[in-house]
């Protein structure tokens, strides 16, 4: 499938060349977060709270500092106090006081694993020994782990100053409910009471982790002159710079962040945990300091996706038209406010037409790690509830599940309940494509069932920079500030190659540090190929315009008489026999036509378009053991345009697999002491290869008019449908609707035997 399709309007877009970063990655040469070494570097270690909730009366680091080889020790008191300060990250913002307290607890430890002190020493083993010599005087406080318990009036309060934002009647009473939002249109209760078919229930799911292979790690060096450097893997070096400088309350220009190769992020690396601590240790020690999490640290102290409890009711009339939706969502924020609350209503209102809507969403803090983004944040959870109900309504009405969705799907020209107009969205095209798949016609065996579910994700745009420069031989350097988490180097190179008419192999996509390229927001929100890609194409267009101008000067013709095609300038002036000049010739002659040929473009597009996907899943359920095995799985998705189809398919497969894990076995399990009981891959059960069939992919292309090649965004939406697709398949196989995740063997067994 690597050959070019002769019917394509493009030369390179849509082909599958080898990724530019492939060789380094498969030969082990790529430098990831925990690999970086700086001259003179020493090793840090972090002391973490054994208690889920405790006041820190005092911390004594003197014995640790007295251990030979220990060069520095820090606690939360070494970080500036920043009440009420926040920093914009382009997409969203970060509350610096909370972020600082999450990096190093100030006066309370809010979850088991919360960092309370750190040391740096000449070896990692001395640093670990030094941690044992730190004395922390804790006053253990009552804790709350369960989400619904945390939202109760009599729950232990995590933050005495917290008041509910968005409350209709503001209260001065301390609470764990950080945020509430309500959206009401029409009379949903009345519409549902009169509906011909109604599906409802309480759906609940615990937090799950992104499960990236590479633990968080960084090296920081903070010089006596105030200038600091950080080397780390993240989804955005500019994000790391902003929050590191923000937490330390120093000028942004004093922090230079160099991105390292990233071993998986999935949203979990759109925030930081270690960098300000490593900076402080470095300043005290006078040496570069490495901090790296263990896998246990990652599970106990880095952000999972929020759990959700939702009461939902959806109804339709006898003809299969949806009449209304009610939903009351409670998302889990973990230790600090910010559970992505707005995203639940966003997803609820962007799939189907509802004449009446009554939804409320809240997020509550609890003594668990602070949640972070995870691939289409908040969407898989609420979509599990929506698409389970949609399936049940279709069944009640005796309608085909795809036909029922088609009847109600949002289309271009519709306006969602949140007031956003649907542009050239491809929901209907995905449903039509799913309907045409052979998979739907394949026979099912005993105890097997087939489920279908759809998913939506907004896809964002945002601030993006790219530079394109020609080398003396006409080869091309493309620099962006966006880490490559899903094949974006290849996509950038393809788009530059397509635009400039040079071979793909002559384009070198580079990820710059924060001092080498203009600002970009993180690689996240499925935005990079759309927004950064557009900056790359615009930078290419800028140098093409420059080359046309130069050619006009060389040929002494008007600029209008110069045309760019197939990687060369052509003279179209009448009676002129000037031979075309290729990009290579233009590059070779750059210094005699005005100097180097290069351009940097910075843009801030917001005209991205959402992604829709439809998944088809066959399961076999062992009626005696409750084991669910995935027999066949097809992902259908509108991507706008697939720039490099391999990496588009890879995202579709990877997202589906993460969703399958979420559906079947992944969960945070806490013991009665409020401590995480499964902080490792043995008992936090992500799928292994033998758990899965080949995930089949069907790319639907309905181009986005706002991108030069039609890109919409790919990476997040494929994790949205699997939870409900599997739930619907299990229902088809067993007759049981399971409303709690994960659908682990014991839960399915109980459902089958308990008649739930």
């Amino acid at each position, binding site marked *: 499938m690597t050959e070019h399709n002769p019917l394509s309007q493009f030369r390179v877009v849509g082909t599958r060349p080898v990724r530019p970063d492939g060789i380094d990655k498969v030969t082990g040469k790529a430098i990831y977060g925990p690999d970086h070494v700086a001259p003179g570097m020493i090793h840090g270690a972090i002391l973490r709270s054994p208690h889920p909730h405790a006041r820190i009366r005092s911390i004594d680091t003197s014995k640790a500092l007295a251990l030979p080889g220990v060069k520095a020790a820090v606690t939360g008191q070494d970080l500036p106090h920043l009440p009420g300060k926040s920093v914009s990250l382009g997409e969203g913002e970060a509350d610096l006081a909370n972020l600082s307290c999450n990096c190093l607890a100030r006066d309370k430890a809010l979850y088991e694993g919360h960092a309370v002190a750190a040391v740096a020493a000449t070896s990692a083993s001395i640093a670990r020994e030094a941690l044992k010599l730190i004395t922390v005087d804790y006053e253990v406080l009552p804790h709350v782990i369960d989400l619904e318990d945390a939202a109760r009036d009599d729950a232990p309060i995590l933050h005495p100053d917290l008041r509910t934002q968005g409350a209709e009647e503001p209260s001065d009473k301390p609470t764990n409910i950080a945020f509430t939002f309500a959206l009401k249109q029409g009379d949903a209760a009345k519409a549902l009471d009169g509906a011909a078919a109604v599906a409802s229930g309480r759906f609940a799911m615990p937090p799950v982790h992104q499960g990236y292979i590479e633990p968080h790690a960084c090296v920081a060096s903070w010089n006596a002159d105030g200038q600091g450097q950080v080397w780390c893997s993240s989804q955005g070096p500019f994000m790391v710079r902003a929050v590191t400088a923000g937490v330390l309350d120093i000028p942004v220009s004093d922090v230079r962040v160099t991105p390292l190769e990233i071993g998986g992020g999935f949203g979990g690396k759109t925030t930081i945990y270690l960098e300000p601590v490593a900076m402080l240790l470095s300043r005290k020690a006078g040496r570069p300091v490495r901090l790296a999490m263990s896998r246990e640290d990652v599970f106990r102290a880095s952000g999972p996706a929020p759990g959700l409890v939702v009461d939902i009711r959806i109804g339709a009339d006898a003809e299969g038209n949806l009449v209304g939706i009610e939903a009351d969502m409670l998302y889990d924020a973990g230790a600090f406010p910010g559970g992505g609350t707005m995203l639940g209503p966003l997803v609820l209102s962007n799939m189907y037409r509802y004449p009446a809507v009554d939804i409320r969403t809240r997020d509550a803090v609890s003594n668990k790690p602070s949640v972070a983004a995870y691939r289409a944040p908040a969407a898989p959870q609420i979509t599990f509830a929506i698409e389970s109900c949609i399936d049940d309504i279709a069944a009640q009405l005796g309608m085909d599940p795809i036909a029922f969705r088609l009847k109600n799907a949002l289309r271009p020209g519709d306006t969602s309940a949140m007031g956003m107009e649907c542009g050239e969205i491809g929901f209907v095209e995905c449903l039509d494509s799913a309907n045409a798949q052979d998979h739907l016609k394949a026979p099912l065996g005993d105890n097997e069932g087939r489920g279908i579910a759809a998913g939506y994700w907004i896809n964002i745009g945002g601030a993006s920079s790219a530079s394109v420069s020609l080398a003396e031989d006409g080869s091309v350097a493309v620099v962006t500030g966006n880490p490559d988490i899903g094949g974006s180097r290849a996509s950038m190179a393809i788009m530059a190659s397509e635009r400039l008419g040079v071979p793909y192999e002559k384009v070198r996509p580079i990820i710059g540090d924060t001092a080498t390229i203009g600002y970009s927001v993180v690689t996240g929100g499925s935005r990079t190929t759309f927004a950064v890609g557009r900056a790359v194409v615009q930078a290419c267009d800028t140098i093409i315009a420059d080359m046309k101008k130069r050619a006009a000067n060389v040929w002494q013709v008007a600029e209008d008489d110069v045309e760019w095609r197939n990687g060369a300038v052509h003279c179209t002036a009448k009676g002129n026999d000037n031979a075309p000049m290729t990009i290579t010739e233009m590059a070779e002659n750059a210094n005699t036509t005005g100097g180097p040929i290069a351009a940097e473009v910075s843009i801030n597009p917001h005209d991205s378009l959402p992604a829709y996907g439809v998944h088809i899943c066959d399961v076999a359920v062992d009626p005696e*053991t409750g*084991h669910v095995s995935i027999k066949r799985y097809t992902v259908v998705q509108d991507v706008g345009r697939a720039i490099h189809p391999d990496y588009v398919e890879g995202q579709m497969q990877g997202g589906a697999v993460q969703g399958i894990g979420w559906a079947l076995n992944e969960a945070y399990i806490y013991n009665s002491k409020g401590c995480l009981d499964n902080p490792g891959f*043995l*008992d936090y059960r992500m799928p292994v290869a*033998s758990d899965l069939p080949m995930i089949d992919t069907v790319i639907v292309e309905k181009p986005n008019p706002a991108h030069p090649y039609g890109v919409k965004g790919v990476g997040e939406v494929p994790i949205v449908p699997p939870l409900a697709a599997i739930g619907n398949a299990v229902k088809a196989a067993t007759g049981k609707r399971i409303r709690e995740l994960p659908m682990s063997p*014991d839960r399915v*067994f109980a459902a089958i*035997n308990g008649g739930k």
Partner: protein
Amino acid sequence: MIAFHSPQTLEDASALLAAEPSARPLSGGTDLLVQMRSGRVEPAAIVDLKQIPSMRGIRAHDGGFAIGAATPCTALLDDAALCAAWPGVVEAANLIGSVQVRNRATMAGNLCNASPAADSVPALIAADARALVVGPAGEREVPIADIPAAPGKTNLAQGEFVAEIRLPAKSASGGDAYLRSIPRTEMDIAVVGAGVSLVLDSSGTCTAARVALGAVAPTALLVEEAGAALVGTGLDDAALDRMADAVRAACNPINDKRGTVEYRTAMAAILAKRATRIAQSRAGANS
């Protein structure tokens, strides 16, 4: 500082283990090294058993087999006679961890790690295997079920270690099998494990049966009543139901992150039945 010893004889190994109370024997290291890295154990000395010639490989013994304690699980698959005689044991040993883990891990290590969920242990108990224990006082042969004392603890004395796993001669009309329940398909730890070993006569009547369970009690269990329920029957459904009742009655599991009491108890019965059918078909009387 950790002392690392590579003795060449059983006597030297025993002396080294006896000399240092925190010393730990090492064969595959797939449990020991992980526990050391996590800080759960901090031995002052490690005694590598792999350099002792008799600790490696499989040899005929007393009509059955003697498996050196440092023989990795994947090596068992290369011994055709062993695979033919005790397929349940070989399969159980090759469910542990991943292929990479099994290239290092050993059945003796699985046994002496004393996890109630160890996969090879119920299969070995069902097969009536024994462990050759070597120590300062000489050698002794111990039934497999007597090695684990409690989760993480064995009945071995200071300086003692398992040198061999000994499997008896297989009856011409015998068969064994092991099944486990895990939420995934591999790379997991048994929520429940069930090993069954049967002997049938020419009419298909069961003349001997051993049923052993893992992960339903602090140590792997031999459920004699379950075996007794099968003996003298033609392995009809009613007999298997009686066997399953005995299995459920023997279960004393805990509720934990890997499974509930109810689920473990129910699965023990189901897996014991399924393993019985496999053992029956291997015994060549699946008529």
